[in-house]
């Protein structure tokens, strides 16, 4: 049985960079598994590539140059992670939610507790970040 032809398959196939003869047959499958094939506009391609690079797996012992500069390296950095994590844990527990529970779920449902907590933790995070910038520019 010949593969069923659809009008959008050639476009998707071209976007996915498939050879001409493979476009009709494989494009629908590629569209499901390969985000690049979903780009119909060219301008979205770099954004998708950027997002894919962000989530790329790599075993790393550091958290990047910005963390090293603002917070610290080695033992100092780990101590900061421990202290920061402790505050995150206590805060999320006492507040009854975190950036996901209060920030995303709470704000999107316009929950009073979610909006108040999000405004508060965002404000302290901003203040703390500017403070870090001031101490270690």
């Amino acid at each position, binding site marked *: 049985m010949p593969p069923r032809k659809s009008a959008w398959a050639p476009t998707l196939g071209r976007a996915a960079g498939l050879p001409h003869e493979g476009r009709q047959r494989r494009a629908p499958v590629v569209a499901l598994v390969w985000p690049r094939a979903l780009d119909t506009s060219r301008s979205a391609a770099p954004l998708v590539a950027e997002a894919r690079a962000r989530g790329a797996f790599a075993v790393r012992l550091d958290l990047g140059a910005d963390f090293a500069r603002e917070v610290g390296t080695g033992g100092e950095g780990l101590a900061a992670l421990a202290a920061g994590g402790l505050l995150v844990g206590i805060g999320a*527990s006492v507040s009854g939610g975190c*950036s996901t529970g209060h920030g995303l779920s709470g704000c999107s449902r316009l929950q009073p*507790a979610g909006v*108040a907590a999000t405004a508060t933790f965002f404000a302290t995070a901003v203040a*703390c970040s500017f403070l870090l910038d001031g101490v270690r520019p």
Partner: protein
Amino acid sequence: MIAPWRTHLELLAFGILLGGAISAVGFTDYAELHRMFTFSDLRLLLTFAAAVVLAGVGFALHCRGAGMPIRRIVKGTVPGALLFGVGWAIAGGCPGAVLAQIGEGKVPALVTLVAILVGSAIGRRVKARAGWDSGSCAS
């Protein structure tokens, strides 16, 4: 009571999707977070705003007709959030993002995870002692 296995599978699927999204938008990256908190790059802030709007539409469609429970501001809400914000800015990871950081292979995030677990155990005791009932994410 333990939820049926189907619920666990559904939560697993949503968890994987959430982790992938958190990672892809850059919420796991200290540099990106720091740029959001110092307003030197608004991309992540706008991404989060878009997610809130999208989730709002989803909740509205999913819960139409049925009233959603309202979570009021209680005694623990603001003090807890004050601490949370400081910790988030220092450690560069919130409870969801730290799991995604570990999934990305960021080894130091294991320290953050352990600290968050210890912190939430302390937080529960503090809440119980103070008699604050701020609920949890699930309520």
